[in-house]
Each structure stands twice: as structure tokens, then as C-alpha cells.
């Protein structure tokens, strides 16, 4: 019954690749920004916090349009990246990953920030008296203790990236095999006569993937939490 056509498989495979790449690239930045927001004391922190959360509240089409203006081939950032590194985002799957990463970023940062805020700083002080410099304290104490939050953030970001539609289609359009993710494919199938069956199959896939991500998040998060703090 659930027999996907090659083009539908392509959409599924593309969605997964885009979501994985988007989350993997977003993670180091997410940890850095989460740390700055949790620990930093600097001028403009509220502004940074606002910018990070902007994709959550802006219409996705607006985020996609802003990405198009800045990261398109003629945009200031896009032109720079192409001239110096040969990187192109516009109308490529990499652009879809960028859009998905940006849209998932607030969901990634938030749990990481909360986890960092609740860490007992006294454990970090104990590590310092035992000879660990700031970098070692971060990697041996802070980061492992924030792991439940990091897992939660990664899975939320991944799920968001997997389903992203508005920003992606605005920024990189809807090109089968390049930028046509599950969501975009469903949309396309619904526009053509007799596309309902194909759309229905992809809807099922989307439900299964999202549920799997949720269950994985729940399970991993609980495991990490009980490991440190008991039941």
C-alpha cells in the first residue's frame, strides 16, 4: 500500500538530507549563542535574543525573502560566499538547508540556553580547583551536564527543518530533485489532478518521521537526565 514512486523517494531522501545538514551546521552556533545568552553579560543581549527568536514569529515567507535578498547570488552575503568560496545557496538544496536551519535555530537555542542556565555553577568551580582551565571545564563539565537540553534542541530543530515549507519555497523555490522536500512535494501533488494518492503517501511518511523524531527526543532526553540526576 505504501509504495513510493522514485520521485517521492527523492523528496523523502532530500528532506532527510536537508534536515540533517541543517541541524548539524546549526548545532555549534546554537551552543555558542545559547551559552552567550545564558552566561554573557554584554550590551545588546536583548537585541541578540530578539534576532535569534525572529524566525519563530516572522511569517516564514518573510524569512525566506530576507534570505533571498542576502544569500541570493547577487545578495551581499551570497555574492561574497560565491566569490571567495564558490558556495551557492540560491535554488540549491544547500539553500534549503540554510532556510531550514534558520527556521529551526530558535527551537535549538532555547532548550540549550535553559539547560546552561540551570547548571550548578559550583560544579564548574570545583572543576577549576581540580586544575581544569576554562576550556576544559566547558567540555568536561558544562557541556555534558547540558546534554539533555542539547538533545531536546537538536530534535526540535531537526523536526522543524524536516517540515519547513514557507521560507524554503520562497528562498530556493520548488525544484524536484534539488529543493523539493516532502512538504513542497505534497503541495505540488495537491495542485495537480489525481495527485491525492501521492500526497497521501507523503503525508503518511511525514507523520511517521515526525513521530519517530519526537519519540527519539523523549527517550534520549530521559536517558540523559536519569543518568545524571536519578529518577
Amino acid at each position, binding site marked *: 500500500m505504501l509504495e513510493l514512486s522514485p520521485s517521492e523517494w527523492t523528496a523523502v531522501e532530500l528532506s532527510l538530507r536537508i534536515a540533517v545538514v541543517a541541524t548539524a551546521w546549526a548545532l555549534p552556533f546554537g551552543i555558542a549563542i545559547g551559552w552567550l545568552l545564558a552566561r554573557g553579560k554584554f550590551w545588546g543581549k536583548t537585541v541578540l535574543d530578539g534576532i535569534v527568536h525572529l524566525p519563530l514569529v516572522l511569517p516564514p515567507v518573510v524569512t525566506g525573502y530576507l534570505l533571498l535578498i542576502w544569500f541570493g547570488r547577487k545578495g551581499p552575503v551570497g555574492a561574497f560566499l560565491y566569490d571567495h568560496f564558490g558556495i551557492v545557496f540560491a535554488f540549491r538544496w544547500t539553500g534549503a538547508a540554510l532556510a531550514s536551519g534558520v527556521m529551526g535555530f530558535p527551537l535549538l537555542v532555547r532548550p540549550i540556553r535553559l539547560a546552561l542556565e540551570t547548571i550548578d555553577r559550583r*560544579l564548574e568551580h570545583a572543576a577549576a580547583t581540580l586544575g581544569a582551565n576554562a576550556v576544559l571545564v566547558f567540555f568536561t563539565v558544562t557541556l555534558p551536564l547540558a546534554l539533555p537540553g542539547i538533545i531536546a534542541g537538536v530534535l526540535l530543530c531537526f523536526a522543524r527543518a524536516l517540515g519547513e515549507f514557507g521560507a524554503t519555497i520562497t528562498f530556493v523555490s520548488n525544484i524536484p530533485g534539488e529543493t523539493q522536500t516532502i512538504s513542497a512535494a505534497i503541495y505540488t501533488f495537491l495542485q495537480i489532478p489525481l495527485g491525492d494518492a501521492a500526497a497521501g503517501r507523503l503525508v503518511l511518511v511525514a507523520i511517521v518521521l515526525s513521530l519517530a523524531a519526537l519519540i527519539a527526543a523523549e527517550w534520549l532526553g530521559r536517558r540523559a537526565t536519569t543518568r545524571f540526576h536519578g529518577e
Partner: protein
Amino acid sequence: MIVLAVDVEKQLGALQLAVRFKAAGGATALFGPSGAGKTSVVNMIAGLLTPDRGFITLDDTILFETDKRIDVPPHRRCIGYVFQEGRLFPHFNVRQNLDYGRRMSRRPRDTGEFERIVALLGIAHLLHRRPRMLSGGERQRVAIGRALLMRPRLLLLDEPLASLDAGHKGEILPYLVRLRDEGGIPMVYVSHIAAEVHQIATDVVRLDEGRVTAAGGLELLAGTS
């Protein structure tokens, strides 16, 4: 011989802390009621709290001096610190907690030393447990072991028995006395309980409202409870 010299001032809320004392080898007690600033003083010795003015020297090393703008960061002071609440790392088991200081200073494993300290503290059967599976007394013994295994030049103990009930106190005290007699590491022992200080300390520094009110031998404990 003077090992530790402290002369520091710091404004802590309403408390104007101004503490000056010297400690020889053995175990020096910082003795006084809660709120006297004892923990703040050991935090300054460890480098976790920065004095407003003054100096701290350990042997012939200056750890802190305002005039010379010296402030050695805590991770380079080589001072072991046993906290009131143990502060074991919850994501490591006991062995990993004990090994932490050695790993951070990239020293090779010394099995003999490890086994000697594990035996001294009677924690050999706990090595694979996680901190949350330990009793209060076990936790403090591991915390003492962790501080000792970093080979400290000085050991700070901040009310290490405070979180324990009477039975568990009796469980730890003999280890501390052995440590004082066999360890050869000078100790600063913070407590507000005279009986405890009596058993462990060789010298006493009395602290009251941020000032040293007396310094000398165990006779200072007379008349306190």
C-alpha cells in the same frame, strides 16, 4: 615554618571582611559562627573569590597580591578543596571523579598512589558507582579522595561534615585525623563546631563578623560550645 599567609579585605554585602592570619603545616582550623566569613576566606585562598585588597601566599609562591597585580587563577593554584556538599560530578562515576584532577593536569596514571588513597578512605568498593548512589558519608570520602589525588600543596576543607548526621560524622573523622598525621599536606579546616575542631585541628584561628579575634592553639576552644 609558615606555609600559608593570608591578609585580605573584601566588602561582602553588609559584612566588611578583613582577615589576617598565618598557618604552619598540620591542620589549621578557621573557627567561628556561621556568617563570620569563613567560607569566603577559603574561597579567596582557592581563587574562587577575588579580594578587594591584600595578599595570599603559599610557601614562597604569591597567589594573590593587589600591589603586584598578581591573581593566579584557581586551576593553577594546585589547592585541593573539599566542599561542604561534596560537589562530585554527577555525570562521572566515582573512579572518574577521583581521576579528574590527574587527567586535567595530564599526569600519567599512578596506580600505587591511587590505591593507597582509595584504601585510606575505604572507598574501593564504590569505584563504579555514580555519585547519586552514594550516602552522604561516602560522598564526602570520595570528595576528599578527589582533592588528594590532584596532589595539592594545600587542602581546604569547608565544613566537610556539616551535611552529615552524627553517625556519618564519626565515620569520616578518623580518616581526617589519619590524613593530618600521615598525609603531610597542610590543611585549612573550616568549622563552627568546637568538638570537631578539637579532634582535627592543631592550630585555631577564630573568626567573628569578618575579623580574626584570636589565633593560637586548641586552648582557644575553651569556653565555646
